[in-house]
């Protein structure tokens, strides 16, 4: 069990969340172009540049207005555990997007066409966030299910399989 400090926060979350030096860090990782893709990131806190690059990339790829910080930590840690080069690759990919103003919809095709060594990265990050799966084959791990973003994105209409939709027959009505 994680130790709680006197204020009830976990040790891992000990730093003051309003610390402006942490807040500035993510802003500093973005250019005007990437900041325009994720304007909310200006208020996002990150503990270091590597996690900052991951958060920025994540935000660009999944296109959501906010990302859960706890799940981000869990996802990042799993991606690093899966591939020790992940932090450096993530920084390199963010730098590339910053530099060349690559549209998220063109990103995969661009990397594939250029045979970039970074080409697998967007899919790894997407799989982690939207499927809750990190790694592949025998080393694949599930890190999220109900909170995987593909469940969250349809949560107003569907429950994740194995969760009850509702009382008997509640599925007969028009969905939305």
């Amino acid at each position: 069990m994680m130790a709680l400090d006197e204020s009830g926060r976990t040790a891992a979350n000990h730093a003051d969340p309003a610390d402006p030096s942490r807040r500035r860090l993510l802003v500093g990782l973005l250019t005007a172009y990437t900041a325009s893709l994720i304007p909310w990131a200006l208020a996002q806190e990150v503990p270091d540049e590597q996690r900052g690059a991951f958060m920025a990339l994540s935000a660009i790829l999944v296109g959501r207005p906010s990302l859960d910080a706890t799940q981000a930590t869990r996802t990042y840690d799993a991606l690093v555990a899966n591939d020790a080069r992940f932090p450096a690759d993530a920084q390199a990919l963010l730098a590339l997007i910053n530099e060349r103003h690559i549209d998220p919809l063109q990103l995969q095709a661009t990397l594939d066409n250029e045979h970039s060594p970074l080409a697998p990265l967007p899919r790894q990050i997407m799989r982690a966030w939207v499927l809750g799966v990190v790694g592949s084959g025998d080393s694949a791990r599930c890190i999220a299910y109900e909170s995987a973003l593909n469940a969250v994105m349809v949560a107003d209409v569907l429950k994740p399989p194995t969760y009850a939709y509702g009382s008997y027959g509640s599925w007969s009505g028009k969905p939305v």
Partner: protein
Amino acid sequence: MAAPASADIVVIGAGIVGALAARRLAQQGASVLILEAGPRLERARIVAAFRNSPLKGNWMAPYPPSPWAPHPIYVPKDNGYLVQAGPYPYPAEYIRAVGGTTWHWAAQAWRLVPNDVRIRSLYGVGVDWPLSYEELDPWYQEAEEILGVAGADNTGSPRQHPFPMAPVAEPWSMRRVRERLAPTYAVVANTVARNSRGYDGRPACVGNNSCQPICPVNAQYLGINAVESAEAAGAKVVPNAVVYRIEHDAKGRIAAVHYYAPDKSEHRVTGKTFILAANGIESPKLLLLSASSTYPNGLANRSGMVGRHLMDHPSTSLTFYADEELWLGRGPQSPSSINTLRDGAFRSRHAPYRLDFTNISQVLNVTNDLIREGVYGAEFEKQLRWRAARQINVKNVLEVLPNPDNRIALSSEKDAMGIPKPEAHYAIDDYTRRGAEVSKADFAKIAELMGGTGLRYSAEGHFANNQHITGTLSMGNDPASSVVDGFGRTHDHENLFVCGTGVMPTAATMNSTLTAVALALRTAEHILPAKQAHAATTHAGHEADRA
């Protein structure tokens, strides 16, 4: 506690079929011992295993095989248990565990249509069954009352008595499909072992949409329900008992079965009557394994037909986007079908088929498609919702004719216990392929009526398998061309019976479990007639009616 070493009835296989035969015999006062190769499973652990699995699209993932009783696994890679001899792959899936393969099934509990058992006489193809639909009818009824089957009367299978339950409430998606396909096609509610109300102590469905791999709430009848009811009737179950040989005496009667415990210690169990109910692959494997100097080709195999006539239901399919929001994934997975193509004069030329609509949530498939396509940014969520709301799939469920070349044999490869693995020889013939070709016109018409766009037919020449393992121990009146008689008794061994989908001489177009259960109940009655016919089973239904 040591497992009993003898019983009146020894059943090999604790799946839905073996357990319900065992239950009926135990209710008549027989001592019954069920030997199951696999372990006991717990529902809650299966649910957790699915939620924690990185392979949500692979419903076998929550059912890892035990080392002593392996079953086929293909994802993330083939574990090599079911050896493929070709020419066409037969990647059958099943579960070796207490409760068997119906731990995960769609609970489609169809009857045959009457002409299914007479296709040789009527259409000049396949074989006739050694019994009529009318003879099966009361056994279907008994099976339906035990399982708790919900269904509608307009599916083409006549009946003398009402279904135990009204059809399960129709999901919105299927309502729209039914409305928009009428009057060109009649879309009907599937006949399912799923509760549309509280029944026999189990609750009504609450729409978890995970019938496969696991119903979390016990609203769907599973093999484990059958096992528990057999135990309640007095049957004993021995899990992790890997039967590897059936022993006969000098007169050709079965004297005992031999099993390994996981530590490979050897055990022998004697009995008066033996029922082999280990499924359409493991049952013939065991008969072939039990060859002796008297029966060099294996037990019950004077005809040479053990393992032959392997059948299943291959499917081709069409996936497309409807022009309105359907949102598959609300309610149970398999609610509706088109049944009008299951029979007709065309059966002399091509395979009949049922057309099956899925109501499985499309979110996972759509997510994988979008990631594969590299759709990122705000467009991802927009596309996910658009596609998950509109994507729909229809597949055919095609009949395969019995062909002795399609068979289960013993492989030269062995499993971890040193037991030869099963080996599948399989091909899909022109009769079935012609049926698939004809059904394409139905797929196209259905898409047109649903305003379909983005039509994606399954790859040409590719058939998905439905895990309805049929044949391999076919019943018939002629001992030269069949393995068991019309009551499931092996032609060669007076006290050895076979229960399971393997005894079905043809596969027809419906999921095979209910027919196998009905035949097994009939076999049980033949072995030991009920003191008061059907009393035990109708009781459950009437109790629930009062509830």
